């Protein structure tokens, strides 16, 4: 068992799924998927739409337990823990979805959400008082990382889609997660907003965060990822270093997907 107080950069700070299977009603969505991410690496999960990438990420985010298989964080089986223990592990994970899913509030309140809910109730009530100024350094810092500095006071309804998604990214980073899960975070964005997010993802890797992102855009996978996992019909058919998977895949279907022939 690893020392729980060890810094998050220790080699055991890994988020992994082993033999994870899951379905909805009769529909088998994930079939014995084994995959993990280490600190300081970007793993791309690629595959056509409807192959189970989102389902896998939600299971990695401990949204619900898989039907079978285990999810481990730092070598601990998260579904064998108490709810309270799992909460403290969940609180080390950040996630961004295809939609920004921002709260109907100011940019500052959105980005400050993660740090705020980690505080004691006493402190949270105190911050609700109108006189307390809770300008947080992390909020400002995270906003600058996505090129949204100075927007703290804006209401999210005044943001463009790309700006909203950059705020969503800052919001997931504001509580300094050790793991970052991104579910097609740039699917709806133009190239400029996509570039801002991609730079922020690389910065997160350089800060030793373990990152897994789902995408159906293999060019993005090639640009960003250190390793690529290829999923088809709920099965992980191939995992390996980006360059190797793109130039010399083991599985014929991977080549087809990369060539754009495998369209569902």
């Amino acid at each position: 068992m690893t020392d729980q107080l060890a810094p998050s950069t220790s080699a055991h700070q890994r988020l992994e799924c082993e033999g994870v299977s899951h379905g909805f009603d009769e529909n088998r969505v994930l079939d014995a998927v084994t995959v993990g991410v280490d600190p300081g690496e970007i793993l791309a999960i690629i595959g056509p739409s409807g192959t189970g990438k989102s389902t896998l990420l939600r299971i990695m985010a401990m949204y619900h337990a898989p039907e079978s298989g285990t999810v481990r964080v730092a070598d601990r089986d998260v579904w064998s823990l108490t709810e309270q223990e799992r909460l403290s592990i969940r609180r080390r994970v950040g996630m961004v979805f295809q939609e920004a899913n921002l709260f109907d509030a100011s940019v500052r309140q959105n980005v400050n959400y993660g740090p705020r809910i980690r505080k004691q109730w006493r402190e949270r009530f105190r911050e609700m008082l109108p006189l307390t100024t809770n300008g947080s350094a992390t909020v400002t810092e995270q906003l600058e990382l996505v090129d949204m500095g100075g927007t703290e006071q804006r209401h999210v309804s005044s943001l463009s889609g790309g700006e909203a998604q950059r705020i969503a990214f800052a919001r997931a980073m504001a509580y300094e997660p050790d793991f970052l899960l991104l579910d097609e975070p740039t699917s709806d964005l133009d190239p400029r907003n996509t570039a801002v997010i991609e730079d922020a993802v690389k910065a997160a890797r350089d800060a030793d965060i373990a990152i897994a992102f789902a995408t159906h855009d293999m060019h993005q996978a090639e640009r960003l990822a250190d390793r690529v996992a290829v999923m088809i019909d709920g099965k992980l058919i191939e995992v390996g270093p980006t360059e190797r998977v793109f130039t010399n895949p083991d599985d014929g279907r991977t080549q087809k997907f990369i060539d754009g022939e495998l369209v569902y």
Partner: protein
Amino acid sequence: MIASFLATHGFVDPTYLFLIDFPFEREYVQSIVWVSLYVSLIAVALSTLFSLAIAMTVGFAEFRGKGFVVALINTGMGFPSVVVGLVVLFAVSNQGPLGTFNLVFTREAMIMSQFVLATPVITGVSLAAVTSVDEGVRDAAYVMGGTRIDVALVVLKDARYGIMTAILAGLGRAISEVGSVLIVGGNIVSDGTSVTRTLTTAIQLEARQGRFETAMLLGAILVVLVLVINGIVLRLGGGRV
């Protein structure tokens, strides 16, 4: 018992109504406004807490008989207030389950009946508001490390305008309602000040007695009050809640 109660509280005593002159009437009107606000605001405040708990449970928890609860809420929204008054009056009467508390013709009984009237309205409108909060917003709150309570608070906050509307609708029903407060409150005035007389029950009494000026004045106050409450609540809703 009720008869002696009526006598001691001067229930509908027309002679005294002719004796009051202007300064008294001012106090009389003020006390009526106060009773109206007191009863309606307390009933609505209590009902809001109760209704939000029900709306969140029905909206997000899975349990048997959920469809029945929703049907009950919808039926309750249009429930005749006189019947509610009758049931509450029976409940607090000597034969009723709450008979020992001596609540017949009291503000507490009026609060109870207005609670019953306001709850389906506040619950129904709040339920629509909380279930229309985007599922992605709940997902986001959860994955950022939110507990069930954190997620519920995010939902309530995102639904705040709908909830404001729900509270307003409940308050509107409570403050402008005649039937049940008349039955359970008894429209009592003592020494020229209202005990259980509200704007609505006063208006119907004054109008029946042919005192149209007073009735009109009370009617105008009721309308202004409803407008002011709307204004305050909408203003609150625009800021940080």
